[in-house]
C-alpha cells in the first residue's frame, strides 16, 4: 500500500502534543508564552550534519533554511531573556522575587547571608542599584522560621509532620539533640535558646537559598524568600 502525499504537505507523525503543552504551560504560570516555544522538524539535513560531526549551524546547508531559522530564533530569544533577567525582569518570573523593607524594594536574588561572630547572629544583606540594607537575625528566630515558605512556625513538640521536613536534612553522628527524640523533625520545630543555635557552616545553594548547619548539627536549607521574610521583608508584587 502506498500513501498518497502531495508535495509541500506538513505531517505530524508523533502527534501535536505541543498544543496541549502550551495550554498546560499557560495554565501553570510558567511565564512562557508562545513566542518562547520552538518546534524543530524531523530533518534529514540535521541528521546528516550530526553524522558528519559538523553542527548544522556551522555547515549551514542551503536547503536547511527552516532549521537554521528556528535555531536563530531560539538563540535570539534565549539571549533576549537572559538580558531581561539581568535587568530586573526576575519579578515577572517569580511571584516571590522581591520584598519591601523600610520603604525600599529589594530583589531577593541579591540577598547575601553571613554570620556575625561577635554577636552570634545571622546577617542578611540586600542590595539595590541605589544602596543596600543589613538586618541581623538571631539564631532562635531563624530556626523558628519556615525554611521554604518564610512564615513563622509555631513551636510544636507533638511530633506531627509538615511540609518543612522536605527541606531539612539532619547530619547523623554525635549530634546533641534537645532530648525530645531524634531525627530532623525535632530540629525543625524546637526553638532552643543559647549558643547551640550558633551556625557552624553556611553554604549558598544556587539561586534557591542557603544551607545553614547549626551547632547541634541540624542542617536546614532556607530559601531566599524565607531569609528575606525573616529579615522583615514584606512580599512585594
Amino acid at each position, binding site marked *: 500500500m502506498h500513501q498518497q502525499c502531495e508535495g509541500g504537505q506538513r505531517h505530524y507523525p*508523533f502527534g501535536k502534543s505541543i498544543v496541549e503543552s502550551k495550554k498546560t504551560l499557560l495554565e501553570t504560570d510558567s511565564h*512562557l508564552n508562545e513566542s518562547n516555544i520552538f518546534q524543530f522538524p524531523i530533518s534529514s539535513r540535521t541528521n546528516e550534519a550530526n553524522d558528519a560531526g559538523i553542527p548544522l549551524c556551522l555547515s549551514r546547508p542551503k536547503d536547511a533554511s527552516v532549521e537554521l531559522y528556528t535555531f536563530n530564533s531560539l538563540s535570539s530569544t534565549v539571549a533576549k531573556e537572559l538580558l531581561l533577567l539581568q535587568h530586573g525582569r526576575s519579578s515577572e*518570573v517569580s511571584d516571590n522575587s522581591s520584598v519591601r523593607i523600610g520603604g525600599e524594594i529589594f530583589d531577593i536574588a541579591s540577598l547575601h547571608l553571613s554570620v556575625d561572630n561577635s554577636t552570634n547572629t545571622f546577617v542578611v544583606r540586600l542590595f539595590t542599584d541605589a544602596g543596600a540594607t543589613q538586618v541581623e537575625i538571631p539564631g532562635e528566630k531563624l530556626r523558628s522560621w519556615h525554611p521554604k515558605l518564610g512564615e513563622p512556625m509555631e513551636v510544636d513538640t507533638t511530633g506531627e509532620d509538615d511540609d518543612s521536613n522536605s527541606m531539612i536534612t539532619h547530619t547523623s553522628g554525635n549530634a546533641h539533640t534537645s532530648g525530645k527524640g531524634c531525627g530532623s523533625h525535632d530540629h525543625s520545630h524546637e526553638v532552643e535558646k543559647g549558643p547551640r543555635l550558633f551556625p557552624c557552616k553556611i553554604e549558598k545553594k544556587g539561586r534557591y537559598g542557603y544551607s545553614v548547619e547549626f551547632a547541634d548539627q541540624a542542617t536546614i536549607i532556607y530559601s531566599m524568600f524565607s531569609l528575606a521574610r525573616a529579615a522583615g521583608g514584606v512580599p512585594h508584587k
Partner: protein
Amino acid sequence: MSYSYRLKGTEWGELDVLVIDMPPGTGDVQLTLCQDLELSGAVTVTTPSKLAAADAVKGIEMFKSLGVPTLAMVENMSYFDVSDINKYAGRL
C-alpha cells in the same frame, strides 16, 4: 564521573556561556546542579510524546521552584515537511 566534579574540576578558561546538557527528567542531577551552581536559565527540550511533554512541564515547575527561570522550550521531531514527493513517498 559526577556532573559537579566535572564542572568544578575542569579548567574551562574564560567563557561567555556554558551550556550544560542534562539527562531527562527531574532527578538528582538537576537538583544537585541547581544547588551547586547559579544557573542563569534553562531551555527545556521535549518531543511530541504526551509523556515527554508532561515531564517537561514538571521540569519547568521544578526549575522555577529552585529559582531557575525557563527561557525557552524546544519540541524536537515536531513535524515533517514533505517537499519532494519523489524522494519521500514509499511503501508503508
